[in-house]
């Protein structure tokens, strides 16, 4: 599913998600342990993933590379719970929600 150099991230394929809505939902449905494990595996590879992906034009990413980018979007999404919030939900956000109804296609 991912480029071979990133085989270490294959166990986290469930984080390859098409939309921000999907990524945010998975974040809310995940425990801190699950997100921490994903973050610990993916974060050290973020720079390398960016370098690898930048060899391709964004509009013509091969499927495995596109999966890798979607996985990194999920990393961005869990970075808040892991790096600052220590919980999946945004603190002080109660029942408030905000839907991303338009996002750039990749």
């Amino acid at each position, binding site marked *: 599913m991912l480029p071979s150099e990133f085989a270490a991230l294959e166990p986290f394929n469930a984080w390859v998600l098409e939309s*921000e809505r999907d990524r945010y939902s998975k974040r809310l449905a995940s425990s801190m342990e699950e997100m921490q494990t994903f973050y610990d595996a993916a974060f050290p590879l973020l720079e390398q*993933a*960016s370098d690898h992906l930048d060899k391709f*034009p964004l509009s013509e990413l091969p499927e495995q590379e596109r999966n890798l980018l979607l996985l990194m979007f999920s990393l961005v999404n869990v970075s808040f719970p892991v790096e*600052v919030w220590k919980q999946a939900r945004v603190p002080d956000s109660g029942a*408030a929600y905000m*839907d991303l109804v*338009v*996002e*750039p296609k990749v």
Partner: protein
Amino acid sequence: MPHFTKPEAGSWTENYPELGTSPVNYEDSIDPAYYEAEKEAIFKKTWLNVGRVEQVPKVGSYFTKELAVADTSLVIVRGKDKEIRAFHNVCRHRGNKLVWNDFPGEEVKGTCRQFTCKYHAWRYSLDGDLTFVQQEKEFFDLDKADYGLKLVRCEVWEGFVFVNLDPEAQPLKEYLGEFAKGLEGYPFHEMTEVFTYKAEIGSNWKLFIDAFAEFYHAPVLHMKQAVKDEADKLFNVGYEALHYEIHSPHSMISSWGGMSPPKDLTIVKPIERVLRSGLFGPWEAPDIEGLENLPTGLNPGRHRAWGNDSFEFFPNMTLLIWKPGWYLTYHYWPTAVDKHIFEANLYFVPAKTARERLKQELAAVTFKEYALQDGNTLEATQTMLKSRVVTEFPLCDQELLLRHLHKTVADYVKEHTDAAQ
């Protein structure tokens, strides 16, 4: 001691003596009768930004806009002559909503050659002419020329599509005035990659403008978003704007931008350090024309520490331009005295590489984390205002734009009420 120079009048607020400095009454955000008055006096009279030209790129491209606050729905469409027009979204036959999909209340978009009513298949051209009546001969002296779609004033400024339900309204550019003139030439047209957020917020529309028209709350409400030492420092320093300006009914706040990039990399989250992006957007500007020599309306205080300018175009559009070359808009669409739809659009130069796209993703995700905190706080404010236990609220010098907003609304409502008597 202020960190930045204040006007000779002594404060930003006293620089506009008509605003006064006394506490402000927030009855305007809880009284249902006042809300009804706002609908008539403001939302049916002023220019409202409903989108951008990129949303109607070619002949036949259209989108609908629900305007509960003006008791209507509009269709915005690019006609055969490439002109953008706005129509009331209502079929002339029996008043059915003309353009919608499964759910009448939901906004839709698409491309078509003509509009066909779902009810009895009356058809309209992209220019709004009635072109086909099912079983036309069954009608009585029906002249199709008399039954075109109801046109709404629609004008474009720098790619922003505005409508006005008042046929007598002054031209858009005249209404937008000095601030718009000062922004002309900014490369909005290059920043076509958009993230659109929507939320229903349980507060009066003005309260969310209040939240985004001052940054006095930022070091407090959003404290946990910075690492602890930085949060403590921000809390102790507080917030001061570089510059405020009012050209009524519009206003603006100019602010510093120390996080883009930050002087000290240890103050930002690890992912921001790697991606070089965050709430203030990607730290490096995109490679396009038009960012070197900015229009004169930006950074009016000519400060070296400048980071962004936020314009409040009355009544319900915020346009926030960031120094590194991206911008966002907020719209607050009232649906009731204590409810509104909040819409935020983040606009970037389209990413060419995955790294650029990741930077934008981080900026967009970060925006949402902040906005959720803002939105939720407002529901708490609304309920307590409604209790009327406290009716007068002191506003500080950094809350100048709020004072101006509530006074401007009051002026519009009063003028309208007086004229009706």
